[in-house]
Structures are given as structure tokens and as C-alpha cells.
């Protein structure tokens, strides 16, 4: 026996595990299929109608099912659905004498993977089955990997929140107690250093919080329970909140919006966070005596919010990357500005979770305008 003999044997042994169930009311067709497939080493089962087929599908859990679309009793289409309900990973292949585009589309919608128009040759059958099995293997593998990825991601979020955030919070707690003079006297030099250490802890905590926010948005947590949201109201709250930091930088902030704008469907807190990120960014990247203008208006089916600044602007090369995680524009002008590099990506994800979009127009040295488009609710509030 040569090597090829062994490989064939191995192939047969591997295929023995794959079971093909043939459901067809025509005996000749069933027998022909089973015979051709057994010869290839597959295990075969046959059923003469949909009901028996379904029973067998439940019992033997086949890898592939061949289904004749035209049978008395339960229709082939219904059978496809019921098989999918048993196990979505069973690959269904449809056999039909009158393959029309419509019936093909119908069957595909019901999870059929492939088509075998009658009459077909044993070779054609084997090729289709082989392809179906490969597909099954891939989709099972894919599901496994997906699951592993989800678990890793969840674990990572937990790890970050507990293993990093808690000790940092604790360090920050100690610092604030020492700085408050509750653990003995602190001289000026020490105080200055401890304050700097505290600021660094703050930015680390901010980074973790931003990162956790991002995974919450990714997990789709914010899209549950959307309610009508009054955008101008959010904007004036944010401006109120950010005014002191703008004034400290001598940046003027202006809000221009109509009161009767339609509401948008969304999560108020998340939208507030998105706009806060955009507006505080605008303030941060605008130099002394600059201006940040926020406008809200209605345009076609959207509520459009524009945040314009007279700040440092973004170069053409950098624009494609500004919504990437952890990307930060690096230049002389931006050196002193702190940030996590997650503000814009968070804003973008929140807006996109609201079926909205964001775009930016900018010129280096002149300033930037971020435009946010959010679909307005149908009924005017």
C-alpha cells in the first residue's frame, strides 16, 4: 500500500464523521445520492418526507442536509426554516427540478447554503457537499473565535476597571489626604510635587474612564431606551459647564440655536458627552482671545450642530486620523495640551450609534469646524 492509499484512508476516516441527510420523496433520488456519498466515505441518512426528515435531523444532527423543495406535506421552504431552528450550523442544500431565481432567493433567505438543480451528476453532488462542509467548518470556527474574542474583551474591561482603576483611585485618595495636611505638614516643594503626581493620576484615571466608555458604547449599551432629546438644551448646559475653563483661557464661546428645533431620538447623557468632547476640544485647541462658535439648525432630515473654532487647525495629512483611537495631533502648538486621544473617537461612536454622522473641515492655523448630523424625530416635539 502506497502513501496515497493511507491518505485516502485517512480522508475516508475523517469523512466518516460527516453525516449527510437526504430528504426527498423520490426514492431513486435518495438512493442515488446516498450511494454516491457513501462511496466517498460520508455517513448517510435518508427520509422520504419533510416530517420524517425533521425527526431524523433532530436525532442524528447531520452536518449537511439535502432538501428537495417540492415534496408533499410540509413545504421545502418551511422545512429549511425548521432545520435552521434545530441548529443554524447545519448546512442546507436545496435540490430542485425547477430552479427559478425566486425560489433560489426564497431558499437562501431561509438559510439554504447552496443549490443543486436536477439533474445533477454524482461529481457535482460531491463538490457541493464538500463545499458545504468546508463552510460548516468555517462558520463553527468563526463562532468559536467570536466567542473567545468576546470573553477576552469582557475580561479585559473587567481587568482594566478593577485592577487598574481601584489602585489608582487609592493612590489619588492618599495624595488628597496628604495634600490636605491630614498626615502631617507638607512643605511647598513637596506640595508642588504631590500636586503634579496627582495630575498624572488624574489623566490616567481619565484615560481608563474614556476607555471604559468606549467599550460601553461598543457593546451597544447606549442604544437601549432612546428617547426624544432636546439638542439646544444640552448644548447650553455644556456651554454653561465649560464657560469657566474657556474664560480662563480667554476664549469666547457663543451658542447660536433656535429654540424650536425638532428633537432627536437618543440617549441624552451619551449625546451630552459627545458634544462635551467636541466643544472642550475646540476650546483646548484654540489659543488666547480665540472664539468657539456652536450653532444648531435644522437641515433636511437632520438636526445639524456645528462647532467652529479659530484655533490651531488640523493639517490635511492628520485629518484622516483624528477619529482614530489614541491619535493626537503633534505639533509645536499642541504640545501643552493634555488629552487621552479618545475624546473624538468616543464622540464619533456615540454619534454613529445614533445613526448620525460627523465631518470635519479644517485649515492649519485658521481653525476647524466639526459638523454633527443627527436624524430628527418624525413627530415634532
Amino acid at each position: 500500500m502506497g502513501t496515497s492509499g493511507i491518505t485516502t484512508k485517512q480522508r475516508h476516516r475523517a469523512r466518516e464523521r460527516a453525516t449527510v441527510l437526504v430528504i426527498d420523496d423520490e426514492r431513486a433520488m435518495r438512493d442515488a445520492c446516498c450511494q454516491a456519498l457513501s462511496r466517498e466515505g460520508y455517513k448517510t441518512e435518508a427520509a422520504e418526507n419533510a416530517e420524517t426528515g425533521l425527526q431524523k435531523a433532530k436525532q442524528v444532527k447531520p452536518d449537511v442536509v439535502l432538501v428537495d423543495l417540492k415534496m408533499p406535506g410540509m413545504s421545502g421552504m418551511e422545512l429549511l426554516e425548521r432545520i435552521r431552528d434545530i441548529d443554524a450550523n447545519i448546512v442546507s442544500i436545496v435540490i430542485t427540478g425547477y430552479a427559478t431565481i425566486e425560489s433560489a432567493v426564497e431558499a437562501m433567505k431561509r438559510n439554504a447554503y447552496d443549490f443543486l438543480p436536477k439533474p445533477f451528476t454524482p461529481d457535482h453532488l460531491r463538490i457541493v457537499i464538500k463545499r458545504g462542509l468546508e463552510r460548516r467548518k468555517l462558520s463553527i470556527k468563526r463562532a468559536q473565535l467570536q466567542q473567545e474574542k468576546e470573553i477576552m474583551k469582557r475580561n479585559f474591561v473587567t481587568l482594566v476597571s478593577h485592577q487598574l482603576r481601584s489602585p489608582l483611585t487609592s493612590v489619588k485618595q492618599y495624595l488628597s489626604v496628604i495634600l490636605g495636611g491630614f498626615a502631617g505638614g507638607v512643605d511647598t516643594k513637596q506640595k508642588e510635587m504631590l500636586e503634579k503626581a496627582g495630575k498624572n493620576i488624574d489623566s490616567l484615571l481619565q484615560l481608563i474612564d474614556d476607555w471604559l466608555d468606549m467599550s460601553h458604547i461598543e457593546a451597544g449599551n447606549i442604544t437601549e431606551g432612546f428617547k426624544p432629546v432636546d439638542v439646544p438644551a444640552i448644548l447650553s448646559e455644556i456651554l454653561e459647564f465649560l464657560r469657566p475653563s474657556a474664560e480662563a483661557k480667554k476664549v469666547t464661546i457663543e451658542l447660536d440655536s433656535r429654540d424650536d428645533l425638532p428633537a432627536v431620538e437618543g440617549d441624552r447623557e451619551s449625546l451630552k458627552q459627545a458634544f462635551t468632547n467636541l466643544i472642550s476640544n475646540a476650546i483646548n485647541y484654540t489659543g488666547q482671545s480665540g472664539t468657539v462658535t456652536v450653532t444648531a439648525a435644522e437641515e433636511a432630515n437632520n438636526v445639524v450642530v456645528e462647532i467652529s473654532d479659530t484655533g490651531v487647525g488640523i493639517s490635511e495629512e492628520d485629518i484622516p486620523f483624528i477619529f482614530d483611537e489614541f491619535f493626537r495631533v503633534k505639533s509645536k502648538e499642541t504640545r501643552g495640551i493634555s488629552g487621552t486621544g479618545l475624546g473624538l473617537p468616543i464622540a464619533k461612536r456615540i454619534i454613529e450609534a445614533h445613526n448620525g454622522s460627523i465631518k470635519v473641515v479644517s485649515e492649519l492655523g485658521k481653525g476647524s469646524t466639526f459638523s454633527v448630523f443627527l436624524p430628527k424625530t418624525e413627530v415634532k416635539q
Partner: protein
Amino acid sequence: MGKAHKVLVIDDDAGFITAITPVLESRGYRVDAAYSKGEAAQKIVGFKPDLIVMDIMMERLTDGFDLCRELKRDPELKATPILAVSAINKEIGMKFSPKTDGEYFQADDFMEKPVSPENLLERVEKLLKV
């Protein structure tokens, strides 16, 4: 001021207790600590605190909530003010406050960690006055 008020700090994070004990003592409060829900139950009976500072998430996620509910159901203890502290808002993205979720979370006040020492003393003083 008559007798010093007694404050029981409950947290499984020893660091938090170490940090805030001198803060509370600076105002003359007598401080005792408990590092678990079980220990807390004992100390509440023995130490008889006038105020409880309590972490929400200890060994189990619900320890703080449970303890809080138990205390507020006890006719002898329900008058003891509870100041809950936690980093829970940020950690699990859960938003709650004694104001809006009083039914489930009957703490008298809530502070996010890390707490500012001045703010902590202010709140403690306020709770002890009522």
C-alpha cells in the same frame, strides 16, 4: 461639643480606610474600621457608630446594598446615617444616586471615590447634625 461622635468605616479596601481615618480623626471623631460585611455587622452592634461610611462594592457586588437595606430595616439602626462611597459609577457604568434610586439604595448620602477630604468632612458633619 459633648462626647465625640463615632464613625465606622466599612470597606474591603484597607487603603481607603487608612487614608480617611486621619481625616475623620482631625475633627475629633472616633473611628473604627470593618473590612467586610460580616465584620461590619459585628462592629455596628459593638462600636455603636453614630455614622457609617460604607463602600458599596466589597467582596460581592451587592454587599453594600444588602447591608444598607438591612440597616434601614432595623428599627434601632435605621436612624444611623449612612454615607456610601464607591467608584462603582465609573467601573460598571451604572448610574444611580440615593436621590433617584432611594427605594433600592437607602443611603443618606453618596460620594464618588476618591473623596476630597474637605468635602467628606462637610458631608459627615451635615449628616450628624440631622
